């Protein structure tokens, strides 16, 4: 089933074709990075750049985050036309793209979604843990999905796929793009039955004080660099509420109440949008466990309104609509 070795080639072939047929102006994909475990986003604007494209489980970033800025009309020269963009999309990335299209942040007709099959991306931190301080100089994804690392000491280490996989990926219900224009490789298959929220349920089962304590501890790591927000494809507000001055919702200091306010607001703002891609967690330099909180939104939206973000282009966003029979068990009665 795995076909990693030729997926990159297939992607290059498709990209070349798209440029040659003049169907796109820009392609957002991945290229090899400068650090051994980090393939990085790259922007290809002509056929010449196609050869650097790669696709494997070291391609972790959610590329959808770049879309809104390509289509904003401010600071554009006269006669500017929105570009035609192809985007390499894993299941989660494609769901983000769908969300952005629905919220009018990217025009559908200008986007070519290149769906790539994804059976999970690696978690840099897990690999660092597995290496325990050793310094890798190069990394390769093996046939079976495990990560082969060359260390600076000359030794080589193999980390199994299970140990290297990002948490969000191990319970991912959508390994394939639910909406796409061109599929690269073969479909992995429907895993939509797999929707465990075990972590959230366990957290819910705790009493309030430990829950609060955990929230507090995680929040106290935050340095307010806004990497979570910037990495999140759905955080596209031109001016974030955290930076508005009229009204000024919160201060800019790094003290806890402000930090908590920011995250409470930001995560809540993702209700019905969050696709649980984990971009915020990967971007966070302080290792804050944001997913335990973002997933609560995903779970509640699913349970209360039967809505999953980014699955279809037609379904209205859950907070823009209602049903007469929506749950109101939370209403205070005399």
């Amino acid at each position, binding site marked *: 089933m795995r076909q990693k070795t030729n997926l990159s080639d297939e992607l290059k072939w498709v990209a070349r074709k798209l440029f040659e047929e003049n169907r796109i102006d820009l392609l957002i994909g991945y290229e090899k990075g400068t650090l051994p475990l980090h393939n990085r986003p790259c922007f290809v604007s002509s056929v010449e750049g196609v050869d650097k494209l790669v696709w494997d489980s070291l391609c972790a970033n959610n590329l959808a985050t770049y879309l809104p800025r390509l289509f904003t009309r401010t600071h554009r020269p006269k006669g500017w036309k929105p570009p035609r963009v192809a985007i390499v999309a894993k299941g989660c990335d494609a769901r983000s793209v769908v969300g952005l299209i629905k919220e009018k942040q990217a025009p559908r007709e200008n986007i070519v979604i290149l769906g790539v099959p994804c059976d999970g991306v690696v978690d840099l931190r897990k690999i660092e843990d597995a290496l325990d301080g050793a310094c890798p100089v190069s990394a390769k994804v093996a046939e079976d999905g495990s990560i082969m690392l060359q260390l600076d000491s000359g030794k080589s280490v193999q980390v199994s796929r299970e140990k290297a996989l990002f948490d969000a990926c191990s319970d991912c219900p959508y390994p394939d793009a639910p909406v796409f224009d061109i599929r690269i490789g073969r479909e992995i298959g429907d895993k939509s039955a797999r929707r465990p929220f075990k972590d959230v349920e366990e957290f819910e089962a705790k009493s309030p004080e430990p829950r609060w304590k955990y929230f507090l501890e995680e929040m106290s790591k935050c340095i307010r660099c806004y990497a979570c927000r910037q990495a999140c494809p759905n955080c596209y507000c031109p001016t974030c509420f955290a930076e508005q001055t009229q009204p000024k919702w*919160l201060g800019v200091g790094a003290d806890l109440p402000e930090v908590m306010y920011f995250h409470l607001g930001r995560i809540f703002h993702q209700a019905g949008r969050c696709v649980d891609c984990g971009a915020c967690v990967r971007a966070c330099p302080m290792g804050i466990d944001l997913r335990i909180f973002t997933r609560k939104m995903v779970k509640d939206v699913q349970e209360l309104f039967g809505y999953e973000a980014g699955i279809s282009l037609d379904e209205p966003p859950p907070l823009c609509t209602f049903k007469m029979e929506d749950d109101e068990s939370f209403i205070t009665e005399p």
Partner: protein
Amino acid sequence: MKTENPKSEIRNPQSEIPEQWQPKILAFLCNWCSYAGADLAGVSRIQYPTNVRVIRVPCSGRINPLFIFSALRQGIDGVLVSGCHPGDCHYISGNLVARRKFALLKNWLEYVGIEPERVQFSWVSAAEGGRFAEILQKVVDGVKQVGPIQKLTKDI
């Protein structure tokens, strides 16, 4: 690493609630039903707790969750949001759209460990002065039980 220990800015949990303490409650009431309901309670001389400060909003759909976070951060002990009964919204569906938001918000705050008594939602019509007084009493009683707000509150 922060040189100013951030935790020092969080008030120490008080195990005992001060005797003289009275909670500060903020009520966001929709113009067309709940505000009129509160008004009716007053005109009908129905007694309700004096802890409440009312902010009149055009519709419960006007409530931005940030209003509620802001209130809690500034030391409000409890927030009540009240609108028209489902189906009675002056703007047809404002409260129905808001209801989804409120359901999530209620869960969300509880999830991170904020006491559920702090933020409550209700429907009160213009004819329900008595109901408004009862709900408010219930909110005040609930907040009294959990004590002064400590979480999220900022001191400067």
